[in-house]
């Protein structure tokens, strides 16, 4: 039996380490392709400044990359160390994409990143460009397989439960790979990385323009970053909607929490722009609503409706009652796999096995389950609304803000007047944290919204954790917090130092070729 304190501490540790890891991943995903774009210009035009640009940004890329790799190791370990039941229960499905990630993507990325750093003098420009593209492809393919694995947790497809082995087993790899959730989630996450990198590069470039340093490098980087960013942001928003549309069908509880939808309402449903949800009273305070908008957003029609929390909790109650015989039959099958009666009962109730597990938290001996315990478990089937509701709104607000920022940035840079808009350069600098926060919010929506499940409808979170002692968990939490705090301080210091010193430090000669007079002539024209 599980100690619930250990489960909560395991969740906390996973959330902290995953959110931390996800500070570095998006920048890697986007910056690798942005380096490829910059190097493409170098190879096509042969202008040295673009080589300097690539080499400068790749310095920052690598400082970030090292910590991404390091903290990625933690994630690889943590399923086994802290979520051992999860690992054995769905490892047959979940392990495969992780292993394929190593085979197809991580090797590609890691082998060629070495050549990207050390190969400048040993490879022809075209070869080095190919290496840079392979690093970008590798890191994004890596994200692809991780997100295929994650999408199984969100929308378990291509798998079934096998009582003979007491676990979920793969039935179709292609269903797993091409699940709608996986498709939308990968593209949403990958290009959220592009947005992150674009804001980062544009922000650092804006700082140089403000300080009037490395102007030629900064102008070019800014132009390329904001063009990269404006398209990527439009894509992220599109895919965010697609993901919401898929998710609405796959996980109605997450959708209800995202929208603060306590009661089922007839179509057309209004959208809660702002509200303060109360889990205790199952209602929203201070709601500002936009009529019709929710139906339009989540069902793409005026007549669509989605179930509210009251209805979902009632449905969960029925499903738990239906799942209880499945758990009882499974226990019989664990000692006598050939018991025909138990097999028949199991298959009749198999669909709701996960819901049966949900109530086992309160009734370890499922044959003694009470109505009160079933009610409590049904109540658990709804995630905490307020954090999901607000993470979602912040993410969307950040996304829209970045779209507006990039559109304006494109106008300024295409007219070559951005250097004169000092207020805007300051905005660009202060935008840097925004995409990182938006990415973190996205993770929170996806993972908090899926609770109380690790695999939606199949495996409850409380069962998934390893059976450690509280002491072990406190030990590991202290260790992670200490190490990770030290790492982020070192990383930020090196980042800021490298940015402050700028590219001149690296290449001796200043990267500026255009004279001040020529640039002023340009201003006059713009």
């Amino acid at each position, binding site marked *: 039996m599980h100690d619930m304190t250990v489960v909560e501490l395991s969740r906390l540790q996973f959330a902290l380490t995953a959110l931390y890891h996800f500070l570095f991943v998006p920048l890697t995903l986007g910056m690798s392709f942005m380096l490829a774009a910059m190097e493409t210009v170098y190879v096509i035009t042969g202008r040295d400044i673009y080589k300097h640009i690539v*080499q400068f940004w790749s310095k920052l890329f690598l*400082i970030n990359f*090292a*910590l991404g*790799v*390091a903290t*990625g*190791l*933690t994630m*690889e*370990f943590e399923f*086994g*160390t*802290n979520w*051992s*039941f999860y*690992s*054995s*229960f769905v*490892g*047959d499905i*979940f*392990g*495969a994409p992780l*292993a*394929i990630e*190593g*085979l*197809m993507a991580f*090797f590609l990325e*890691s*082998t*060629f990143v*070495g*050549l990207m*750093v*050390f*190969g*400048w*003098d*040993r490879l022809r420009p075209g070869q080095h460009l190919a290496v840079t593209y392979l690093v970008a492809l590798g890191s994004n393919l890596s994200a692809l397989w991780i997100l295929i694995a994650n999408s199984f947790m969100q929308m378990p497809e291509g798998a079934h439960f*096998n009582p*003979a*082995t007491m676990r979920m*087993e793969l*039935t179709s*790899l292609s269903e797993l790979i091409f699940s709608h959730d996986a498709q939308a989630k990968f593209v949403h996450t990958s290009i959220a990385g592009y947005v992150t990198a674009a804001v980062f590069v544009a922000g650092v470039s804006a700082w140089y323009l403000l300080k009037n340093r490395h102007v030629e490098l900064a102008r070019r980087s800014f132009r390329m970053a904001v063009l990269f960013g404006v398209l990527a942001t439009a894509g992220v928003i599109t895919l965010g909607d697609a993901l919401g549309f898929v998710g609405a069908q796959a996980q109605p509880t997450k959708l209800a929490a995202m929208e603060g939808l306590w009661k089922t309402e007839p179509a057309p449903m209004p959208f809660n722009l702002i509200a303060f949800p109360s889990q205790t009273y199952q209602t929203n305070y201070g709601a500002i609503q936009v009529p019709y908008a929710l139906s339009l957003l989540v069902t793409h029609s005026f007549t669509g409706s989605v179930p509210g929390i009251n209805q979902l909790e009632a449905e969960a109650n029925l499903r738990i009652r239906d799942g209880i015989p499945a758990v009882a039959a499974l*226990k019989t099958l*664990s*000692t006598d796999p050939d018991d025909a009666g138990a097999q028949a009962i199991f298959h009749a109730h198999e669909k709701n096995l996960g819901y049966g597990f949900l109530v086992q938290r309160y009734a370890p001996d499922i044959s003694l389950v009470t109505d009160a315990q079933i009610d409590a478990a049904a109540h658990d089937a709804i995630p905490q609304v307020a954090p999901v509701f607000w993470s979602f709104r912040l993410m969307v607000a950040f996304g829209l803000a970045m779209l507006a920022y990039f559109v304006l940035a494109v106008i300024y840079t295409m007219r070559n007047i951005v250097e004169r808009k000092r207020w805007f350069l300051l905005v660009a600098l202060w935008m840097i944290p925004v995409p990182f926060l938006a990415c973190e919010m996205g993770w929170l929506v996806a993972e908090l919204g899926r609770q109380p499940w690790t695999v939606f409808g199949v495996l409850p979170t409380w069962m998934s954790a*390893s*059976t450690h002692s509280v002491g072990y968990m406190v*030990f590991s939490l202290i*260790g992670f917090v200490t*190490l990770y705090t030290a790492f982020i301080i*070192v990383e930020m210091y*090196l980042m800021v*130092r*490298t940015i402050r010193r700028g590219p001149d430090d690296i*290449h001796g000669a200043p990267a500026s070729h255009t004279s001040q007079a020529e640039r002023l002539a340009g201003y006059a024209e713009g």
Partner: protein
Amino acid sequence: MDTYATLQCIWWLLLGVLLIALAVMVGMDMGVGTILRYVGRSDVERRVALNIIGPHWDGNQVWFVLGGGAVFAAFPLIYATAFSGFYVVMLLLLWSMIMRPLGFEYRSKLPSQSWRNTWDWALFISGLVPMVVFGAAFGNLFQGVPFYFEWNVTSHYTGSFLALLNPFAILCGVLSLSLSVLMGSVTVMNGAEDVIYERARGLARTAAIVAMVLFAIGGVWVHGMPGYRIARAPGAGVAQTPLQQSVTHADGAWLANFNAHPLLWALPLLGFAGMLLCLLAANARRSHLAWWLGALAWLGVIATAGASLFPFLLPSSSTPDQSLTIWNSSSSQLTLAWMLGFALVFVPLIIWYTSWAFYVMRGKVSAERIANDEHAY
């Protein structure tokens, strides 16, 4: 033999191949980390040693990640039970390993000597600790680990952290460390010159001798150790949980496979031959040959352990009946088949482009080149 049992055996062999690749490729980089402060007495000398593996450590490390991923995908119950059971040890392994990427990438970013010294020690720890843990984990497989399963196959580890650091496990840990130091030294010889080369050469000789002695002692130890034997089980290629078998202790059981198939004695011999010939080659300054012979030594050692344990993967010392074997901890037939397909396509591809990367970066690393190269570690 039916398809499922065949796939289970193939994946057991593939896991062995991956562990050998991990030991060779990650082991040599970790060996360089361990001996960094010995072969490099000045900052420049240490940078030479680091830059020999600089272009490759990241790619090599993926063998470790892939090893973990392959256990997860092919033997999920092993991944779940071992990683959670060895919790504290796994954390020490992890925490030391995550310092490594930062050590490489951040060390030479600042000129301060104390900064660089700190990262040198971090690289030392992240070279030494994981290799000791890697060997000690194998040592514990021979003795069994205290764990049991609930009816729904929830695993519980009932031992203490210190129990994992018993004498035999430490012996295996030091054996693993000495092989990693051997490979690290030979790798430094491949890329360095003069005084660094000579220090590495001396160290390679010592490490090879230590490894041979420890491997011999380990063999004698296992000979007298009680092993495990399956008394009754659903057998190979049958969908099952670990709750349906009975397993007994038996003296000398770990040599049963060798006695049944005397040809298997070639494996430990291969290990000894690899170490001895590696020693001779390093002594004769044939460092590239020595590298391959060192890899052969790893192959011999790991294959010996695998052949001895077969078909056990993780025996339970407290509930022997619930010991994990290839047959009761593997993935389903479909998953094993798909994974085999991916491995057949991508492993050759990986070997091909990794070789190309080594080819591009071939040659000696000199102090002058590092001084002139702004990308160097």
